[in-house]
C-alpha cells in the first residue's frame, strides 16, 4: 500500500505493518536460538541441572566469594535413606516424587523454584531447611510430615498442611525429588539462605 502525498512515512499504516512483522520475526529467531542453547544447558547431568544420582551425595548451599552469591556444593557420599542408587534407580524415584507433587497440587500452596502459590513456604531448598533440626533425623521427619502433616507443628498462625493421602512409597519419592531439586543452580535464589547444619 503506497502512502499518499500528505501522509508522513512514519505515521503510515504500511510502515508500522512492516516494522511489526520484521521485529517479530527477528525476536522469534533470537528466542529460538537462545532456547536451543538453554535447553542444551539444562539437560539433567549437566552443570546446572545435576544428575539424579546426585541424591547419593551430601548437598550444601554455600556463599561463593567470587560470585558474591550462594552456590550448590556437592559433598561426600551420603546416600538418601542409606541406600546408594544407580542413575536409573534415582531417576525413577525422583520421577515418582515429581508426579506425586503434581498429583497433590503442591504448587497451589507452595512455590517450586519460586513459582506457584504463596500460602506455604518455597520448596526449592526444602531439603536444606533448618526446620528439620539435624541431618540424622531429617529424612524420617520429612517422610512422616509429608504422609500426615495435619497433626505436626507448623507455625503460630494455625495454618496447616492437610493430609493428602500420600503413601509411604510416595513420601520417600517426594523427599528424593526435593533433595535432587536442591542441587539445581538457581543463580543464587533464594538469597542469604541459612541451610541446616550437616556437619554433625
Amino acid at each position, binding site marked *: 500500500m503506497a502512502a499518499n502525498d500528505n501522509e508522513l512515512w512514519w*505515521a503510515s*499504516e504500511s510502515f*508500522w*505493518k512492516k*516494522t*511489526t512483522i520484521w*521485529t*517479530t520475526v527477528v*525476536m522469534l529467531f533470537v*528466542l529460538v536460538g*537462545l532456547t536451543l542453547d*538453554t*535447553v542444551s544447558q539444562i*539437560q539433567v547431568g549437566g552443570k546446572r541441572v545435576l544428575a539424579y544420582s546426585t541424591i547419593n551425595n551430601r548437598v550444601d548451599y554455600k556463599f561463593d566469594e567470587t560470585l558474591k552469591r550462594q552456590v550448590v556444593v556437592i559433598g561426600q557420599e551420603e546416600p538418601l535413606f542409606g541406600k546408594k542408587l544407580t542413575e536409573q534407580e534415582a*531417576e525413577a524415584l*525422583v520421577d*515418582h*516424587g515429581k*508426579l*506425586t*507433587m*503434581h*498429583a*497433590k*497440587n503442591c*504448587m*497451589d*500452596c507452595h*512455590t*517450586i*523454584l*519460586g*513459582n*506457584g502459590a*504463596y*500460602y506455604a*513456604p*518455597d520448596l*526449592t531448598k*526444602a531439603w536444606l531447611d*533448618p*526446620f528439620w533440626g539435624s541431618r540424622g533425623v531429617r529424612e524420617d521427619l520429612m517422610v512422616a510430615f509429608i504422609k500426615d502433616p*495435619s497433626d505436626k507443628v507448623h*507455625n503460630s*498462625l*494455625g495454618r496447616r498442611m*492437610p493430609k493428602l*493421602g500420600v503413601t509411604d512409597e*510416595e513420601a520417600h519419592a*517426594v523427599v528424593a525429588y526435593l533433595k535432587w*531439586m536442591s542441587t*539445581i*543452580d*538457581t*543463580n*543464587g*535464589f*533464594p*538469597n*542469604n539462605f541459612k541451610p541446616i547444619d550437616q556437619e554433625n
Partner: protein
Amino acid sequence: MTAIRALNSANLNGGQKLAVKYFTVALALLGAQILFGMLAATQFVMPGFLYGVIDFSINRMVHINALVVWLLFGFIGAVYWMLEEEAGAPTVGLKLGNIIFYVFTATVLVVVAVYLLVQVGPGEMSTQWLITEGREYTEAPRWADIGIVVCVLAFFYNVAATFFKGKAAKGGISGIGGVLLLDLVALAGIYLLGMWYTTNVTLDQYWWWWVIHMWVEATWEVMVGCMMAYALMNVLGTSRKIVTTWLYLEVFMMLGSGILGIGHHYFWIGTPEYWLSIGGFFSALEPLPLVAMVVHAVYDSGVHKSRNNNHPAMGWLIAQAFGNFLGAGVWGFIHTLPQINLYTHGTQWSASHGHFAFYGAYATINIAFFYMATQKLRGDVWMSGNLFGNWKWKWAMVLLNLGMLGMIMGMLVAGFAQSQIERAIGGATWTAFFAAQEHPWFVQGMYWRLAFGWMFAAGYVLLVWDMLTIGKRETRAVQSHDDAALEAK
C-alpha cells in the same frame, strides 16, 4: 414509564448470537472466580476455614483456572462479536461453532467438578490424564487439554474460513483481521507446549513459561489490541485507518519487548545466567506499548470530545487503558529487574501484580464488550447521558475498581513486609516465611484484601444486575458517529 425493550437476539448477526453465549458463560465464571478467591482469601486470615474440606490449594486452583477460562471465553466471544463485520461475510460453520461452544462449556464444568470432588490423585500418570496436571494455571488434566485444543481448532476454522470468504468478496482482509488470525495461530500453537510431562523440573518450567508468558504477555495483549481497535471504532467512531496504524505500532512494541521479556521468568529456575540481563532489559521495555495504548485511547477520546454511543463500554475501555498500563506495566516493572526480583519472586508482590494485571488488562476489556453486546441486544439503544438506571453501571464500576485497587494495595503492603522480613533478613527459610506471614504488617494486608474483596464481590453482583437491565427503558436509538463532521470542526 417508557416502553420496555426486551433482550432480543434477533438484533444480532450469527456470530454475535454465538458471542453472547460465550459472554454469558464468561460472566458466570467470573462469579466463580470471585467466590473461590474469597474462600482462599478467608483462609489466609482464618486457616481453619474449610480445612480438610476445600483446602486452600483447591480454592486457589479453581480461582485461577476460572480466571483463565472466563478471559478466554470473553476473547472468543469478542472475536465472534466482531467477526462478520470485520470479515464482511456471515460466519462460516456456525453450527459447528455452536456445538463446540457446548462441548467447551461441558468440558470446563467436568474439570471443575473433578477439581472439587476428587481433588487429588495418586502420584502416577493417570492423575495427570484424569484429575490434575498440578502445574499452576495449567492444572487442567490432559484429556481436557486435548478437548480444549479441538475446540480452539474448530474456533480457528470458523474465524479463518469467514475471513477468507469475506476476502473473496471484499478483495482483502482488514488489518485487524490479519493480526487476529496470526494471533490465534500463535495462541493455539503455544498451548501445545504445555501438554507434556518431564521429570526435569527446570525444563518443565522452561516450556511451561512459554505457555503462560506467551499467552499473557504476548498473544493476549495482541488480542486486546485488536479488541480495543474494534471497540474504539464502534463506540467512539475513530476511523479505521487510525486504529489499524496504532494496532501495528502496539503489536510492534508488544512483541518487540515481550518475546524476549520471557527472560524475567528464567532468572531462578536453573536456566543460564544470561537470562538475567536479557530478561531484565526487555521486560523493562514491556510497559512502553502499554503507554502507547493509553495515549491512543485517551487521545482518540479527546479528539471525539468523549462523545460516544455507549458510556459504560467507553468507561471500561478507559479503565482498560489505565489498568493495563498500571497493572501489567508499572506493577510488573517495579519487580522485574533481577536485583529486585531476587527478593520479591514468589511473594505477595507477585500476587498484587497478578491481580492488577489480569484485571486491568483483560477483565476490563471483556466487560466493555459485554456492554457493547447488551446495547445491541436491546436493539441498539442510546447508552449515554440520561440513561435510565445510570447509577447501576457507574456504581458497579466504582465498586469493582476500588475493590480491586484495595486488594492490590493490601497485597503490595504484605509483599513489602514479606520481601523484607522473609527474604532480605530471614533468608527464605520456612521459619523466615512464617515470621513474615505472622507479622502485623502482613496480616493487616490480608485483612484489607479480604475486606476489599467483599467490595469487589458487591460490584460484581451489581454488574450482573446491570447487564440484565441496562437499556431496558431506553427509547432513544443509537446515533451514528459523524466522524467527518467532528474532524472538520
